[in-house]
């Protein structure tokens, strides 16, 4: 049985500095760079700070490891610097197309995540009731044996599809893809699909025949106008996006931001459209109306590449800014001006595909409207518009065929790896249990729809759950329903770094090594310049933790799946895959940890620019029309919140990711708890003062609080906003536990997108109380 991988390192030296200004004789100064000596000369030989511990950057024994960040789902390439087996600094890898040498707050805080004393340290086996959080420590042998026997027992009684594999964060491929596929369960899912991006992916496939993929293909270098709808760059601190947004603005690109809240991005915009939540499609239809009636669209491009223009023109003939104004609560002049701002800069003009777009359940249609505007602008496949991302060539590790498809999609997915027309079925012939083609048309597995079968047994029982790196109670709406499922399951396995909220419900808890302590599979990133990135450990795993690949393999061997796990070490697996691109781990290390390939980003670079059923940009969707869905997006009002309620909106803080980083010491102290943003006039009317403690009660009586009010002029009076991921109920996370309020707990409802299976979560609303409701 292989032990956890040993670190693999590359020696680097800091650049040479000037000669020392004074003679260095003390033994402790041996090995110091000239720069260090010069610095110390300033303070003298007894200087405390300089002598205690020399700045890492002045040392000659710094070891640098190429890796990929895991502090958010964006996956920046990083350089991890270590001295004496301790990580001292993490920098962006300049060779990486995403980080380009820079990192965000979270990426910089990786060491703090690693050294969080609250980490899971050893395997645990439950001794109390589910949810109580009482465990005993166990050996890996016992914990893995226990899981394997539980899984085999379930398979014997119900078939392999009775185990669901839910995973998030960057090691999830081992569990929701490789292990789940070898095991034979089609019920594998990532929250990054149906709880985040699947509407934009399905809408793109329907409209232009291409997925958006992990990296939104905006050709930022040449863009002259962009529109962001709900995307809050700067608070959504994806590194590359912040770089591109800032550079484009500095170059003079115009920015339109549509958001009920004056986000950071909106504060930088040329035009801010403070739209009434849920009415974006009306705005998009009005933009189409202006672009078409004023002739500010790319007629030649549409003639050549698109179908259905005449029907579209008729469809939007009456959706004028004046029509949209009372719906959106926007000034019609502002609607017209923003449409012109975009139209006049075509084709270097883009309505940016958002990322988290599961809002109201009609999201695939709204995203279709976004992409139709982009088509009118002539942006698809054009310089300064939306490039075609391509997946790099890379073969899988040779293994016997899988009987089921993996969990496709998600923000880290390869855009080439979307689902086929064939519904994946397990070896027993059963299809996914999430309702595809019964309650929704198509798309990757709808994670939240796997919860009801755990409770009802319909369409068939799911009695086991392997949860990897996903906080089940902070990512899936209706957490009470999730708890009910967790009570009923026969086997709950949690693999994680931290004792997150759902850990208390697990039968067996496996402590994973962090991204800084482990290998993972290669990243084949679909991009303008497709590339392959690798992660290698900078230090060995701390405590009794193990890497995900090792855990997946050890389980596989115990489950009779050894045919799929012929490799013994991560290095062996990675080296074998790299042969297909004529590389190796050694060569990757020498070449900066990144292997970049040529892309085919523009119309002239590809034979079939728009691989839809008609081979055109389908302004009118043939697939949707045939399936009985609206072939052109329409504005359909969503349900208004009850009187006295505010629509509950949620989003990001730049120093935090999901429910993952709130306990990370250096990030915790930057933003220890969230607040509820409330329009200042509303606050004055209700008599709330800044930072007053309040309780939030949603339309179904779910309560969160106390939480502070942030009274602000930066939000509309009909909604409130919270940073997602707070309100942990996880005693083992000593900093985050009990701090702030959970938006997920207030999402007792969602609306299922009938096209892609996405869960629209902005259909909840809250009342604000000054005392805890009875």
């Amino acid at each position, binding site marked *: 049985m292989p032990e956890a991988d040993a670190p693999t390192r590359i020696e680097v030296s800091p650049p040479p500095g000037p000669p020392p200004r004074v003679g260095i004789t003390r033994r402790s100064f041996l090995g110091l760079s000239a720069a*260090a000596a010069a610095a110390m000369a300033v303070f003298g030989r007894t200087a405390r700070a300089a002598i205690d511990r020399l700045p890492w950057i002045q040392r000659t024994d710094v070891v640098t490891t190429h890796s990929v960040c895991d502090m958010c789902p964006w996956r920046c390439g990083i350089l991890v610097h270590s001295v004496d087996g301790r990580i001292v*600094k993490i920098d962006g890898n300049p060779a990486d197309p995403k980080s380009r040498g820079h990192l965000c707050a*979270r990426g910089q805080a990786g060491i703090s995540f690693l050294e969080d004393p609250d980490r899971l340290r050893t395997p645990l086996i439950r001794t109390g009731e589910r949810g109580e959080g009482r465990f005993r420590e166990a050996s890996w042998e016992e914990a893995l044996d226990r899981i394997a026997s539980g899984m085999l027992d379930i398979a014997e009684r119900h078939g392999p599809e009775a185990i669901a594999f839910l995973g998030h964060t960057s090691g999830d491929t081992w569990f929701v893809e490789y292990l789940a596929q070898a095991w034979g369960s089609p019920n594998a899912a990532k929250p990054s699909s149906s709880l985040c991006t699947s509407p934009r992916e399905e809408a793109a496939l329907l409209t232009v025949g291409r997925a958006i993929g992990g990296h939104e293909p905006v050709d930022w270098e040449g863009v002259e106008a962009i529109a962001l709808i709900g995307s809050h760059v700067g608070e959504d601190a994806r590194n590359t996006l912040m770089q591109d947004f800032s550079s484009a603005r*500095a170059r003079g690109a115009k920015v339109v931001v549509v958001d009920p809240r*004056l986000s950071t991005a909106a504060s930088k915009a040329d035009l801010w459209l403070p739209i009434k939540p849920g009415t974006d499609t009306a705005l998009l239809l009005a933009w189409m109306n202006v672009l078409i009636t004023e002739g500010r669209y790319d007629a030649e491009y549409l003639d050549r590449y698109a179908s259905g223009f005449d029907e579209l023109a008729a469809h939007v003939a009456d959706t004028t800014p004046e029509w949209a104004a009372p719906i959106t609560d926007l000034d019609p002049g502002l609607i017209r001006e923003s449409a012109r701002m975009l139209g006049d800069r075509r084709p270097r003009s883009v309505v940016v595909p958002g990322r988290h777009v599961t809002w109201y359940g009609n999201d695939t249609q709204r995203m279709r409207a976004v992409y139709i505007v982009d088509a009118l602008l002539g942006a698809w496949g054009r310089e300064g518009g939306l490039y075609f991302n391509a997946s790099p060539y890379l073969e899988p590790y040779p293994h016997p065929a899988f009987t089921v498809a993996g969990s496709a999609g998600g923000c880290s997915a390869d855009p080439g790896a979307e689902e086929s027309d064939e519904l994946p079925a397990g070896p027993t012939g059963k299809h996914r249990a999430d309702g595809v083609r019964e309650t929704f048309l198509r798309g990757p597995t709808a994670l939240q729809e796997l919860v009801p079968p755990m409770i009802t047994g319909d369409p068939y029982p799911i009695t086991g759950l392997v949860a990897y790196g996903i906080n089940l109670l902070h990512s899936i709406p209706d957490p009470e329903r999730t708890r009910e499922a967790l009570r009923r399951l026969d086997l709950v396995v949690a693999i994680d770094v931290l004792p997150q909220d759902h850990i208390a419900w697990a039968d067996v808890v496996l402590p994973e090594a962090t991204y800084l302590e482990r290998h993972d599979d290669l990243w084949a990133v679909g991009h303008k310049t497709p590339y392959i990135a690798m992660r290698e450990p900078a230090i060995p795993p701390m405590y009794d933790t193990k890497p995900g690949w090792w855990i997946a393999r050890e389980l596989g061997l115990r489950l009779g799946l050894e045919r799929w796990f012929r490799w013994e070490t991560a290095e062996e697996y990675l080296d074998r895959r790299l042969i297909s691109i004529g590389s190796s781990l050694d060569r990757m290390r020498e070449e900066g940890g990144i292997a970049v390939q040529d892309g085919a980003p523009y119309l002239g670079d590809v034979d079939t620019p728009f691989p839809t059923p008609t081979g055109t940009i389908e302004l009118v969707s043939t697939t949707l029309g045939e399936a009985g869905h609206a072939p052109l997006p329409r504005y359909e009002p969503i349900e208004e919140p009850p009187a006295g309620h505010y629509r509950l909106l949620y989003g990001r803080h*730049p120093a935090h990711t999901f429910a993952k980083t709130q306990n990370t010491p*250096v990030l915790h102290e930057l933003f220890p708890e969230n607040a509820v943003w409330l329009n200042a006039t509303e606050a004055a009317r209700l008599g709330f003062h800044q930072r007053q403690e309040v309780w939030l009660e949603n339309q179904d009586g779910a309560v969160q609080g106390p939480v502070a009010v942030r009274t602000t002029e*930066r939000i509309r009076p009909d909604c409130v906003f919270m940073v997602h991921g707070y309100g942990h109920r996880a005693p083992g996370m000593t900093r985050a536990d009990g701090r702030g309020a959970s938006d997920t707990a207030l999402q007792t409802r969602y609306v299922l997108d009938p096209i892609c299976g996405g869960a629209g979560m902005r259909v909840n609303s809250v009342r604000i109380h000054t005392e805890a409701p009875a």
Partner: protein
Amino acid sequence: MTRYAMAVDVDRCLGCEACLVACSVENRLPLGSHRLRIRETATGAFPDVTVEFRVEQCFHCAEAPCVGVCPTGATFKTDDGIVLVDPDRCTGCKACVTACPYGMRYVHPRGYVDKCTFCEHRRGTGRDPACVETCPAGARVFGDLDDPDSPVSEAIAAADRVDVLFPNTDAEPSLFYLNARLVNTLAETAPATVTGGEHG
């Protein structure tokens, strides 16, 4: 002569706090201690609101008020314009903390006064200060103010507007704000100690 200086393009800054964490890691600051802070300012009423983020750290003033008040000479100015504290000579008396018009000094748990050094320990390595290096928005520039071809001189020359904070103190700060809308219009009193970001 060399006079090191920094410029922050306020129009580019997204307030993301990457600089703040990079500084803490690079300089091994203990939890609760920060050399940088980010101030979020909003003016106006919905929907006509202006928001701006302003990063603040030691301004390395040419006429630094902190230097003269130090009774032990622990606070001093280098030949290339950087204000430093020698922790061995510092008694933690806080005279400099009081004297700093910007509230950018704090007492380190080890008992000496600490603050931004422009990552002075990086000078010989050819690398920018950690905050400049990591900034995803490209808002920060560092270099020699006396060299017209340095990045900082070029950025200042190209800016539509250049501000220093509280110019009436005559301290001649070496941190410049570029392309701001609000930065110098406010008369708020700087807090006494450095703290974390405020937004969210």
